[in-house]
């Protein structure tokens, strides 16, 4: 056996992969967007599995409250506020020095993603918001790259594999976002729910990267580990022939400038304004319930709602527009926004 491959012997003994599948995996480049709970698990899994290259994108740094569920990171990474993508890269190099790891500390916007997509073989979902997911979905469709969606909150999670030209896309499945405010910052998250999602994402990734397309799961998995529920749901009926992302005349709306969430510092103020993308519904009352339930201070008047979290004050208008006070940092403002709204 090739001595470079010998470390993967237990994966090659698995017949559907075998030595041929291992060689295929070793040629592949996976892009993981978001290096939080999901992204640290899937990047560790794919680095150990022996992909050629991993690109990791994350705009955030390691915080102590991440350590409860985000693998790869240590107390020192949190104390030094190391950027997540860079902290992950450092650990992954110690785990498998044969894998090329590229860390990008930035917001995963359309311009960045289109710039690096050229030789990517697989898109892996590690993000915490649907704006970025719809962007990944459009990218997947435009460049014909499989996209392994996953998300979780509390003990609840879901995973689905999108194969362009074969399965429905994320836009077919979820036309309008249910922004009900259940985020890891409002209702929490337990690490086993993360692992359950990444077990599915990882298995799908290995199937795709090793060339076992016939084994790819065709159903949408949804589970609750605390309630002991597991559903495997057929999704074919949701494929839309006129879908703007995967239909007959696609427009890839999230790759068009002007369609994305707009985030800008208000002139001369320590405040960032956020206007969400168009396809989101905005049930402000439900959000308020979630925030109160999470113990956050909520105030307001008939025209707006204010909520205070981690020292920053966010003000929401009924149309979904938000002002994040106390910062001029766009990424910090996005982080607060997504932690409150989803």
């Amino acid at each position, binding site marked *: 056996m090739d001595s470079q491959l010998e470390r993967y012997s237990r994966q090659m003994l698995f017949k559907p992969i075998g030595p041929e599948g291992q060689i295929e995996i070793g040629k592949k480049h996976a892009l993981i967007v*978001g290096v*939080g*709970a*999901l*992204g640290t698990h899937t990047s560790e899994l794919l680095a150990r599995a022996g992909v050629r290259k991993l690109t990791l994108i994350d705009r955030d740094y390691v915080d102590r409250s991440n350590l409860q569920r985000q693998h790869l990171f240590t107390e020192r990474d949190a104390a030094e506020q190391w950027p997540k993508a860079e902290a992950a890269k450092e650990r992954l190099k110690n785990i498998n020095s044969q894998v090329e790891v590229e860390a990008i500390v930035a917001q995963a916007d359309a311009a960045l993603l289109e710039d690096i997509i050229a030789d990517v073989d697989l898109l892996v*979902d*590690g*993000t*915490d*918001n*649907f704006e970025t997911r719809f962007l990944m979905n459009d990218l997947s469709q435009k460049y014909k790259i499989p996209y392994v969606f*996953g*998300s*979780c*909150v*509390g003990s*609840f*999670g*879901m995973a689905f594999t999108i194969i362009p030209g074969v399965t429905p896309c994320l836009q077919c*499945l*979820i*036309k*309008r*976002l*249910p*922004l*009900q*405010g*259940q*985020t*890891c910052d409002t209702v929490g*998250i337990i690490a086993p729910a993360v692992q359950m999602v990444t077990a599915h994402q990882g298995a799908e990734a290995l199937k795709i990267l090793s060339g076992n397309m016939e084994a790819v799961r065709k159903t*949408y998995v*949804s589970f*609750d580990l605390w*309630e002991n*529920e597991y*559903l*495997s*749901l*057929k*999704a074919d*009926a*949701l494929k839309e022939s006129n879908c703007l992302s995967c239909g007959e005349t696609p427009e890839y709306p999230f790759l068009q400038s002007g369609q994305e969430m707009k985030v800008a510092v208000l002139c001369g103020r320590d405040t960032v304004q956020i206007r969400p993308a168009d396809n989101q*519904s905005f*049930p402000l*009352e*439900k959000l308020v319930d*979630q925030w109160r339930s999470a113990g956050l201070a909520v105030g307001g008047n008939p025209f707006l709602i204010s909520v205070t979290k981690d020292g920053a004050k966010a003000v929401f208008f009924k149309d979904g527009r938000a002002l994040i006070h106390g910062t001029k940092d766009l990424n910090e403002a996005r982080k607060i926004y*997504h932690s409150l709204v*989803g």
Partner: protein
Amino acid sequence: MNKIMLFAQLKEDMGKSLMEVEVSGKTVGELRVFLEEETPLGSLDGIMIAVNEEFVKDDWVIGEKDEIALIPPVSGG
């Protein structure tokens, strides 16, 4: 009767993870309106609905004893 399984936020809103209602003959779209008007679930905009382990569109007609699941796509990760 039809069983409806509720997850995440919806389970919280309803106070239980399973409810039983008679909605056979209704379309899935009509089920949405019914649940929004008659239960504490509130807006079901964006909620995915499966009947007998298969996601269906809003024009799908629910049959007797069909089992329904309401899946809210959550954003965490």
